[in-house]
């Protein structure tokens, strides 16, 4: 029970007792902007009593005018209804997301021929679930700022025939002269596209395909080449690992294929309270500079400066090698906490261990491979024979390309999905040199930083409008099909290349015959047409490739690698170092013009609409800066100015800045948001390095408020909000860490749930409920964007987030727990240097004794006979009493009309952007409260499906989108009245175990239960840590 006495804090504002925080904590709603900011009558705040009559008078006049003549509405049917398409009934199509090496096999929900939602494809064996970015890619389809058609110079009216002819002529003359042609792209997963490029190269032999990734893994490929002679990215299997050591590899957030890794890792973190339930877990050690999503989910986390990371690897190797009898390497020894412990446990877990490292340095990767080799990971947790192809970028080749362009040696550049002027550290050099290239053609969808310097922009359609395929992993193929007809006058890049290669340009036909020749032959059965239709339906195809994972012999030059590491990294570094990292939502910034992603709070900092200079509290104090101060970060003359954010857990002496921001030519939502940090990255021995070294940080004197969501609505300070324990305690008592509130009465103390004013509800039919496992929720935020897409949640923008008026129905609360003893009041006031982190998804709890329902004066929020707390928007008059009375702070008020409003110029403000709206969910207007409906429209749809088939509803029918999007299945939804449902079975096991209701003592009886978080920590050590503090 001791863990329930842990002290949690939401953010540093709380510990600092910030003026603003204290003010907001006391008042229910954040204070509105001053009147001078908003003067209009309909602004949502400044309405005076006198205005009431004006509004009333206007209302009456409007109503009587409206009564005179109802507007004529048209009902327009198809001329020729497509087969299988029924208005108001959604269709699902399997497709593939593969952008810049990020891969997900997806299902696309379409209504009346337009995609409105993306979900993961459960048939896929190469990917699990979809990330926030994949969910948000849907909005990219309806981006109003894409080019409408081909563009030549400033001419946007040019016809395809004209540009084709001109380009073909120029290509031929270049080829005749032997001029170099370069195709530049990020990682391409599509085998057919690669074949198209090969065909193009066959026609123009001077062509070279240059592949680079903005967040490169080139060293990992090189490391494997040096170690095993194979330049591949091995397939990791976290589900087989008992002990994982991550070194600067954010594999739950941004490293290579985070959703797949999350899902595998989650399998090792599931525990059950039943007698025969699973009682053991994997353990995760993380050594890193920034506070990453993986680090915040680690059992043991150690902050290390970027310049020490290489030595973590060599020291770990030496410690492991000492025990397992490998040759030792000479490198400075590094002594950081947990390193010895990690090494000991790795040795113990031999055969079930895994070490991953995200440092883009081949020498480091060679040493990591050596550790994994010693631990027998190859053939168990690492499969190098069936590699993945998510990152194929070659940093050296890209650098060579920049040199070539600068030297005037390139006659033609074809840009396919890449944007090097923005996301390559040498972008500025490239920007200067590119206009000199004779022929430059871009297939990008807009005139971005690079394309705007090009002579031709021939926009390719969005991936949801196009045919494509992908080979994410050896033996796994998937198909992408168009789910909407072309919105603009665009053409697939592959068709353009085929046309210029003077081949038939129908890429669909090309792909089909490519598959017949190359993929069908790898285990396709039956008639080819039938095979094709089946793969198109399933979206994926697994070949008959034998999945053997061998343990290859390590042949790398360990001594040389060790020496190189020893030279480059320092055991004790004193200066202030820069750590550049990738943000979970925005990623590398290629799709930054997406308001959903911009407003998506970064899982750990919970900040959005900006990038920041992350500093630990200690470093900030040393530098004399506070949160919100704009600082100039200077690296050898290149500098950017960003506001400071204090990030507990960040390595001392490190300043962390995210890539993906500071776009200049992406569109309204991205331009000028944050600063571009790519130019500060460097190349070390030809490989892209995100830790350039020492920087100087100086105050600029300006301040910039940070749009951070965490402290807005979270509840805390009550023992029953978060409940957690450690594995050893859980093994003894499944109820360990649970807080069971007792209420003293005249008849002795009783359970909180035994006392009630209310009669409760009787659910005869269904009782919808949800169980959220805090142990497998890693806080990735996929559900947040999924919910936003499904429920037409508006984007409110930076200023409104600062005003604490974000509209997300589902938020993920991030808590830091203090490691100080509960009795140590002074210790509790100090922000932990390396706090434990807990994530808790929070949405309407659908209370049975709902406090919101009793205070609504107009009965706009009522209780259903199926356990749902209902919200009738049209009845709501906006008193906000309910939000005031909600103990979970999950109700959102529409302070403004967020659609057709130029002040909120996001997707709801243009006709194209509005195509993403889900027609089954009302778009709320100004002045009403909204909140999680538990996807009641999907419940109703599922019930209707069952009724039409004259049967009961089963688990297979019903879903909530947060549950279906979760890569780790942390959210279980279903009918608690149905004994066969998954949720009933889970609750039957956990009711006397880990299941708890949040704030049980107030007895609101939510329909949502949480399962306690179990950390795989040693008990003894916890006691020691406490003694240290005392």
């Amino acid at each position, binding site marked *: 029970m001791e863990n329930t006495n842990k002290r949690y804090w939401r953010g540093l504002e709380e510990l600092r007792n910030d003026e603003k925080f204290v003010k907001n904590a006391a008042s229910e709603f954040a204070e509105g902007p001053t009147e001078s900011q908003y003067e209009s009558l309909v602004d949502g705040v400044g309405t005076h009593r006198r205005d009431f009559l004006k509004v009333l008078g206007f209302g009456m006049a409007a109503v009587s005018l409206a009564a005179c003549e*109802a507007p004529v509405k048209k009902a327009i049917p198809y*001329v020729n209804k497509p087969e299988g398409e029924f*208005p108001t009934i959604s269709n699902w199509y399997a497709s593939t997301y593969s952008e810049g090496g990020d891969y997900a096999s997806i299902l696309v929900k379409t209504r009346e021929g337009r995609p409105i939602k993306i979900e993961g494809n459960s048939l896929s064996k190469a990917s699990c679930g979809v990330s926030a970015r994949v969910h948000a890619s849907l909005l990219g389809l309806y981006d109003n700022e894409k080019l409408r058609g081909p563009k030549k110079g400033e001419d946007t009216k040019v016809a395809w025939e004209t540009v084709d002819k001109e380009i073909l002529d120029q290509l031929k003359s270049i080829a005749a002269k032997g001029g170099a042609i370069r195709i530049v792209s990020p990682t391409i997963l599509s085998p057919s596209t690669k074949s198209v490029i090969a065909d193009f190269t066959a026609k123009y032999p001077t062509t070279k395909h240059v592949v680079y990734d903005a967040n490169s893994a080139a060293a990992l490929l090189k490391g494997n080449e040096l170690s095993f002679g194979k330049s591949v990215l091995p397939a990791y299997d976290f589900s087989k690992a008992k002990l994982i050591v991550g070194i600067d590899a954010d594999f739950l957030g941004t490293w290579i294929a985070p959703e797949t890794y999350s899902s595998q890792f989650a399998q090792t973190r599931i525990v059950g309270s039943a007698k025969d339930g699973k009682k053991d877990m994997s353990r995760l050690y993380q050594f890193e500079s920034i506070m990453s999503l993986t680090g915040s989910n680690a059992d043991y986390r150690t902050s290390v400066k970027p310049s020490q990371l290489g030595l973590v690897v060599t020291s770990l190797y030496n410690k492991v090698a000492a025990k397992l009898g490998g040759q030792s390497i000479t490198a400075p020894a590094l002594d950081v906490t947990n390193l010895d412990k990690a090494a000991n446990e790795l040795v113990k877990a031999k055969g079930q261990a895994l070490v991953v490292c995200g440092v883009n340095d081949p020498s480091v990767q060679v040493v990591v491979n050596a550790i994994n080799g010693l631990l027998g990971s190859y053939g168990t947790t690492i499969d190098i024979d069936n590699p993945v192809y998510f990152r194929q970028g070659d940093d050296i080749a890209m650098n060579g390309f920049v040199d070539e362009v600068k030297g005037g040696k390139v006659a033609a550049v074809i840009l396919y999905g890449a944007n090097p002027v923005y996301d390559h550290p040498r972008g500025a050099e490239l920007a200067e040199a590119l206009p000199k290239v004779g022929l430059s053609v871009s297939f990008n969808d807009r005139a971005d930083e690079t394309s705007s310097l090009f002579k031709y922009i021939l926009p390719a359609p969005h991936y949801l409008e196009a045919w494509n395929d992908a080979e994410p992993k050896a033996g796994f193929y998937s198909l992408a099909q168009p789910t909407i007809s072309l919105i603009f006058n665009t053409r697939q890049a592959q068709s353009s290349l085929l046309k210029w290669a003077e081949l038939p340009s129908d890429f669909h036909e090309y792909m089909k015959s490519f598959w017949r020749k190359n993929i069908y032959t790898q285990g396709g059965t039956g008639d080819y047409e039938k095979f094709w239709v089946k793969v198109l339906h399933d979206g994926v195809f697994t070949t008959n490739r034998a999945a053997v994972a061998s343990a290859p012999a390590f042949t790398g030059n360990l001594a040389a690698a060790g020496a190189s590491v020893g030279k480059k990294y320092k055991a004790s570094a004193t200066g202030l170092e820069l750590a550049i990292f990738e943000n979970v939502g925005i990623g590398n910034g290629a799709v930054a013009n997406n308001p959903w992603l911009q407003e998506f709070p970064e899982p750990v900092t919970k900040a959005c609409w900006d990038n920041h200079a992350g500093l630990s509290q200690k470093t900030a104090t040393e530098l004399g800066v506070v949160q919100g101060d704009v600082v100039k970060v200077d690296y050898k003359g290149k500098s950017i100015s960003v506001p400071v954010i204090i990030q507990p857990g960040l390595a001392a002496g490190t300043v962390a800045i995210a890539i993906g921001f500071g776009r200049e030519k992406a569109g309204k939502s991205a331009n000028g948001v944050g600063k571009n940090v790519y130019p500060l990255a460097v190349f070390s021995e030809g490989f892209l390095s995100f830790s350039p070294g020492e920087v100087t940080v100086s105050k600029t004197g300006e301040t910039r408020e940070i749009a951070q969501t965490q402290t807005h609505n979270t509840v805390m300070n009550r023992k029953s909000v978060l409940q957690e324990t450690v594995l050893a305690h859980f093994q003894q008592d499944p109820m360990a860490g649970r807080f069971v509130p007792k209420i003293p009465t005249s008849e002795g103390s009783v359970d909180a749930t035994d006392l009630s004013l209310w009669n409760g509800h009787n659910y005869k039919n269904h009782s919808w409920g949800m169980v959220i496992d805090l142990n497998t929720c890693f806080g990735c935020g996929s559900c947040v964007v999924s919910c936003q897409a499904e429920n037409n949640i508006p984007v409110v923008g930076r200023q409104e987030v600062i005003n604490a008026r974000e509209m997300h129905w589902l938020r993920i609360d991030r808590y830091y727990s203090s490691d100080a003893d509960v009795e140590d009041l002074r210790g509790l006031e100090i922000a932990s240097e390396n706090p434990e982190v807990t994530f808790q998804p929070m949405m309407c709890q659908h209370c049975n004794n709902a406090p919101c329902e009793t205070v609504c004066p107009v009965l706009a929020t009522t209780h259903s006979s199926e356990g749902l707390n209902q919200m009738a928007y049209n009845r709501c008059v906006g008193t906000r009493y309910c939000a005031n009375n909600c103990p979970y702070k999950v109700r959102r008020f529409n302070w403004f009309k967020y659609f057709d409003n130029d002040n909120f110029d996001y997707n709801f403000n243009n006709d194209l952007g509005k195509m993403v709206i889900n027609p089954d969910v009302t778009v709320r207007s100004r002045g009403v409260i909204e909140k999680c409906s538990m996807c009641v429209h999907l419940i109703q749809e599922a019930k209707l499906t069952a009724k039409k088939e004259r049967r009961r509803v089963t688990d297979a029918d019903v879903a909530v989108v947060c549950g279906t999007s979760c890569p780790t299945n942390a959210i279980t939804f279903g009918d608690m009245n149905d004994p066969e449902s998954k949720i009933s079975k889970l609750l039957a096991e956990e009711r006397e175990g880990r299941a708890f209701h949040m704030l049980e003592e107030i007895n609101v009886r939510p329909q949502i239960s949480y399962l306690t978080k179990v950390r795989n920590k040693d008990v003894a050590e916890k006691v020691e840590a406490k003694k240290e503090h005392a």
Partner: protein
Amino acid sequence: MYIPFPKNSKFCSFIKCSNRIVALVLAIMLSTPVLLRAQDSTAAAAPAGGGDVAKGESLFKNNCAQCHAVTDERVVGPGLKGATSRQDMPWLIKWVRNSQAVIASGDPYAVKLYNEYSKAQMTSFPNLSEDDIKSIFAYVDQAATAPAPTAAAAGGAPAATGAADSGPSDLFMIVVVALVVVMLLVLGVLLVIVSLLSKAVAGGTEAAPKADFMTRLSTSLKNFAMDSSIRSATIWVFALLVLKATIDGAFNVGVQQGYAPKQPISFSHKLHAGEYKIDCNYCHTGVNRGKSAHIPSANICMNCHGVIKKESPEIQKIYTSIEKNQPIEWVRVHNLPDLAYFNHAQHVNVGGVECENCHGDVAQMEVIQQRSSLTMGWCIDCHRKTEVNTKDNQYYDKLVQLHGSESKEALKVADIGGLECSKCHY
């Protein structure tokens, strides 16, 4: 509330009538609903029975009757009388399921038929099982040999559909009775006043002989008008009436009952649904599947009008639409506000509600009209009254059982959450 016009006219007349006539009218009015209800029950009792022929009949009417007659009369396609003797059953099954495939296979009879009917394709019915098709032909054979009963049944149909408007409600009857009572009281009071006045006139001749009758009447009326209490009462009554009219008016804002706009093509439901008895489902294909019943796309019109009445200027409009690939812009008649969710499949497929319940007697409408008010009160009213169609639907089994143990009343939509907000608003 909706009061039928003829009954209103009876109201107007009876004010002038004597008590005897009032009593007569009252008696008629009280008996009307009873008569109407009786008619309802006979109409409802008609469809019943089982077996292949009955199943075949419903399948035939839903799928085939638009183009085929059971006699040898040629409609769009050939009359089906004797079809089973012209071809064997396996051929017929193949043909019904996919006539194009049979023609493509080069079957001589099929090709002949195809050419004979100016190469108009027959719609394929891949969903019909072998049994279904056998049932259809069983019905065709039976109907063709005994045409008399079908004709009789068809003749009976209009009488039954005439009863679509349900009888006056209980509330209406109470109001009528109350009104009659009030009228009788008023009549009594008036008689008393008249007799008093005539007495006053008679008595006055003695008391004030100089003033004549008209002068006295005008003075007393003047006094009457000057009386402040009477004046204020009048003003109050007037004000209240205005208020009521305003409120009634406000409640009717946006209610488009009776809305019958002119459509771009003067399509007659009376002709198609009334005279030709084309099933609603045939054109409104979504009604059993989803939220919308679907306005038919032009290619559905072409199923028949590819052959029939091609020269009509109205039908030419469809041809133009198809040639130009310009959809026909119908004027939407039933406009539910966006905040309300309504699903046709729930009501028609699951609930077994007849189209006429909400849309009125479409078979008699030359121009389609909104018959119901589509207000929330109207929805709720029906949900309170309507029994759930639980027959042969496992979804409801548990609910029926639970309800049966608690109540003797029938299971109404309202009992299973049919009045809850989130059933229609989300």
